[in-house]
Every structure is written in structure tokens, then in C-alpha cells.
């Protein structure tokens, strides 16, 4: 399992990761979710000992990465798309990594087979497409048959068939009792793949919960509402126990009340309802959670 405690990383004045604490348990897929630039890659790099935390710590089965005896046999990591010399063949790349950890040469062919790159294993990596490069990175992560698998944005560059393959792979790795931690900025994909979520924004922990809870919490409670005269409506919503966010065009996003309660409230105020739409999308829930924390987000 992976344990982060008070993990913090500063780059000059910028706080990339801010006092982050979370657990990643074995036997399930944990999704690491956050907008681009929220600190996911930096966190992954600190787990793998590539970046040094400014303060705090992160351990893998209570060990720092640098103290692992056979790193690739204990942790397999996919860090960003290409951490590979383009002049080398896929096979040479994997073989050199295998040699670093006394992994048998036969295992190189095995993982090339698993990710479907056997046919191009002698081709120079520089000639690979984005998806092939991603598969090679995944092959490297699986090389040591590790108990912990860390994948940073694994579906980047994969086609729909590849995405499905990735999803099945993650689930089966977790099913074997491994610790699987995958980052993504795409909520919908995470909802299909992950069992547990760690959500961050601007380097801070926003939520740590089962995906099921996240979905339940998000899909029922938010509505887009447009009424004839909206001035007094937000106050009434507040009195009724909900919250209303008024947009520039007069529409409101109401949460904390169900559709029936909103309709009844409008009737009691004698206000005509023009629109009452459930915002069921996970992406919206994700945006709602992280909206305030998108550092370079588009202006609303």
C-alpha cells in the first residue's frame, strides 16, 4: 500500500503539492483525479523517488522508494508518456531495465506480448506512435511483476480499444491483490475503472472516497433551474435547506434539494418554472468539486 503524509512540494514560489495525505490500499483500483496542473504527476514522481518532497513523506509498504531492494519487482511505474531514449529498440530498453533488477530476459518477451508490441520490439522507439509509446511504458511498469502499480495518465494516446484494454488490465491487477494507483483528469474514465478515488485540486486533497459514493453524491443533487422571476428564489432555496448559485444569464444551479422540492417551492412562491434539469454528469460533479481549484482554468 501507499501512504502519503503531509506531502508537500514547492518549486520556488509555486506550491505544486500542498500537505497531501492519503492511503492507497491493495486489492483495488484507486483513481487519482484532478485537473491538469493539479499536482498529480509531481505526487507520482515523489512516490517513485524522482522528486524530493519539500516536507512530508510518502512510503510504499512503509519503505521509501530509494530503500526498495528490487525497485522494479516491487513497484512498476508509468511516468508520463515517454521516459525512453528514442534511439533504442523497445526490446533493448526493456532488457536494460530488466538487467538493473536481475529480471530474466524471457520476461521482456512476456511483457511485450502482454501489451501487444512483440511485432515491433526491434523497432526504434522514436518511430512509435503515442499509443505504442504508452504501451511500452506499461510494459516497463509490468516488467518486474510488481505488487504496486503506478500509472500516470495511462489512457493518454490510447484508442478506444486500448482504453478498454487498460481498464481490464487495471481491474485484473487489482483482482490479484496488487495495489493499483492510476491518475487521470477524466472523471468518466475513472468512474468505470476505479473503486476508490483520491481527488486533488491545486495540490490539495479535495476528497478521498469510494467511487460509488462520489457518483451517488453527485448525480442526484444538482439541478439547473430557470424561473420567471429569480430575485427572491435563491433566498427561498436557502430557507428550504438548499443552495443556489445564480449564473449571469439568470439560471441557477441548485443543490441540496430534489426536483420535487424545487418544483413545490416554485409553486408555493407562485413563480413559473421554465427549466428544471438534473445535472447528472460525473464531469459536472468533478468540476463542482475542483472548480475553485483550477489554477489556469478558462474564465467562466
Amino acid at each position: 500500500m501507499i501512504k502519503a503524509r503531509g506531502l508537500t512540494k514547492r518549486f520556488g514560489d509555486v506550491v505544486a503539492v500542498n500537505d497531501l495525505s492519503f492511503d492507497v490500499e491493495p486489492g483495488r483500483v484507486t483513481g487519482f483525479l484532478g485537473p491538469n496542473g493539479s499536482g498529480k504527476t509531481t505526487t507520482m514522481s515523489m512516490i517513485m523517488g524522482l522528486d524530493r518532497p519539500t516536507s512530508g513523506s510518502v512510503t510504499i509498504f512503509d519503505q521509501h522508494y530509494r530503500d526498495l531492494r528490487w525497485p522494479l519487482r516491487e513497484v512498476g511505474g508509468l511516468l508520463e508518456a515517454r521516459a525512453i531514449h528514442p534511439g533504442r529498440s523497445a526490446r533493448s530498453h526493456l532488457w536494460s531495465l530488466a538487467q538493473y533488477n536481475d529480471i530474466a530476459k524471457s520476461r521482456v518477451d512476456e511483457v511485450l506480448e502482454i501489451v501487444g508490441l512483440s511485432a515491433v520490439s526491434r523497432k526504434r522507439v522514436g518511430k512509435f506512435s503515442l499509443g505504442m509509446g504508452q504501451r511500452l511504458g506499461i510494459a516497463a511498469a509490468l516488467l518486474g511483476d510488481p505488487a504496486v502499480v503506478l500509472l500516470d495518465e495511462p489512457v493518454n494516446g490510447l484508442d478506444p480499444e486500448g482504453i478498454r484494454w487498460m481498464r481490464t488490465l487495471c481491474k485484473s491487477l487489482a483482482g490479484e491483490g496488487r495495489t493499483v494507483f492510476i491518475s487521470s483528469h477524466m472523471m468518466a474514465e475513472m468512474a468505470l475503472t476505479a473503486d476508490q478515488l483520491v481527488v486533488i485540486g491545486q495540490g490539495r486533497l479535495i476528497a478521498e472516497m469510494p467511487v460509488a459514493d462520489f457518483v451517488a453524491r453527485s448525480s442526484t443533487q444538482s439541478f439547473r433551474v430557470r424561473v420567471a422571476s429569480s430575485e427572491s428564489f435563491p433566498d427561498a432555496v436557502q430557507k428550504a435547506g438548499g443552495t443556489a448559485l445564480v449564473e449571469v444569464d439568470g439560471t441557477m444551479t441548485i443543490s441540496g434539494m430534489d426536483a420535487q422540492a424545487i418544483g413545490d417551492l416554485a409553486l408555493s412562491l407562485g413563480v413559473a418554472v421554465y427549466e428544471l434539469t438534473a445535472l447528472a454528469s460525473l464531469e459536472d460533479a468533478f468540476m463542482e468539486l475542483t472548480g475553485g481549484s483550477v489554477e489556469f482554468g478558462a474564465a467562466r
Partner: protein
Amino acid sequence: MTAVSNAPVSFERELPSGRAGLRQALSAEWTKFWSVRSTPWSLFALIVATIGLGALSTNALHGQPFAFPDPTRRILVGFNLGQFAIGVLGVMFISAEYGTGQIRSTLSAMPRRPVVVAAKAIVMGGVSLVVGEILSFVTFFMGSAILAGTQSHVSIGDSGVMRVLVESGIYLALMGLIGLGLATILRNTAGSIATFAGLVLILTLLLSAMPASIINAVSRYLPANIGATVFAVSTPGRLQGTPVFSSQVGLVILALYALVLLCGGCILMIRRDT
């Protein structure tokens, strides 16, 4: 979305005893060294520089009516150029890893930085020493064959020749390690190559503009001047009027440069993010 099983399978596996160390790192770095095209290209350039230039300059002595002083130095003249090829090879061995992101894969397989640097230094130093020795002897035999029967004839048994040949290979290997050490610190290919060239060429030029007292004190420490004493059959303590160390002391100084650069690079690697 699926309910998490209450009794998850636990993933148990046995790891081999011991831990990944220098032995594993050496075999991995050996594979990496030979599996990129820059290696054969640099070695090819080195061979062209040493043997090719040696043949040309030796041939020019042919038919001269006088005996050229120290023909060995003339035969090995290409080593002055060849040191750049070996320097580039040393630089690229690690700077290309930073340039491509490969270093992250390497350090995930071996998070202990000094082990990585030591393995690279042993592979780089070993290969360039063997290649350097072969080239110095091959170049010499070719050159002495060209000069056979002329007044500038030279034989491997002549005084000092053997020493020059052995030390020329060592000199090349140390220059390769200096390239590797520089790039471990600077991480950038272009910057490291430029600095390497600066150490060999520009420093010498700059120094020549200094007052004699400074030249006399400093010039013996320059890699180029150490090289000049190595390639010469005899340098009785002075090179073109300025005092120099014996070639052996010079090589020890060069080895210290390489060691300081490599150790400095290790310390920076441990402290820096990757």
C-alpha cells in the same frame, strides 16, 4: 462502482535475497551503451581522427630530407582531435538520458544515484581505455610502417615510445570520463560539449593572454598541456618554455578532475529533482 470484496486476495511474492546493486547496474549500462547509434558513430569518428589524421600527417614526412624530431608525436597527432569524439561519447552517455526523459526510467530501476553514475563511469572508462590503447598501438604501427626507411623512422623499442603509447590510451579514457562528469553536472548535451571544448581549447587560448607569471603557474594544470606531455617522447619539465608536470603526474591530475566532476555530479543528482 462494484462493491469491494471484504476479503481481498493478498498479493504475496518472494523477492530474491540481496538487492540491486553495481553488478546489475553494470550489465544494464553496458546494454544501454551499445544500443544507441551515437556510440558507434562517436567511435567511428574517433578512429577516423586518430588513424586517418595520423596516416595523413605521417605521410607528409615521407621524402623529407631531414629527421623529424619525435615522430611518435607526429603519428599520434590525431589524438588531439580524437579526444573530442571520446568527450562527446562521455557527455552523450548521460546527457541523452536527461534530454529524452530516459533518466526517469533509469532511476526508477535504480534509485541510488551513485550506483548509476559509478556503473556509467566504469563502462565509459573501460570501453574508452580499451579502445584508446588499441588505437594508440594500431596508429603507431601504421605510422612507423609509413616512416620505415626514412630518416624519421621510429620503432616501438625506442626510448619513451612505449610509455607514450600506453599513456595516450589512458589520456583518452580520462577525457571520456571528464565528458561524462561534466554532463552529469550540466545534464544538457550542447552545454556539456561546449564546456568540454572550452576546457581543452579556450582555456589554453585565454591563458596565453595572461602575464607570464600566471601562465607559468597555471598552464601545467590544463588538460591540453597534460596531453602534450603525454604525447611527447620526452618533456624535460618544460613545454615551449613553460613548466609542466611529468606525464604521470599530469594523468593523476586529470584523473582527479574526472573524479571531482563525477562525485559532484552524484551529489547534485541526489539533491536535485529528476
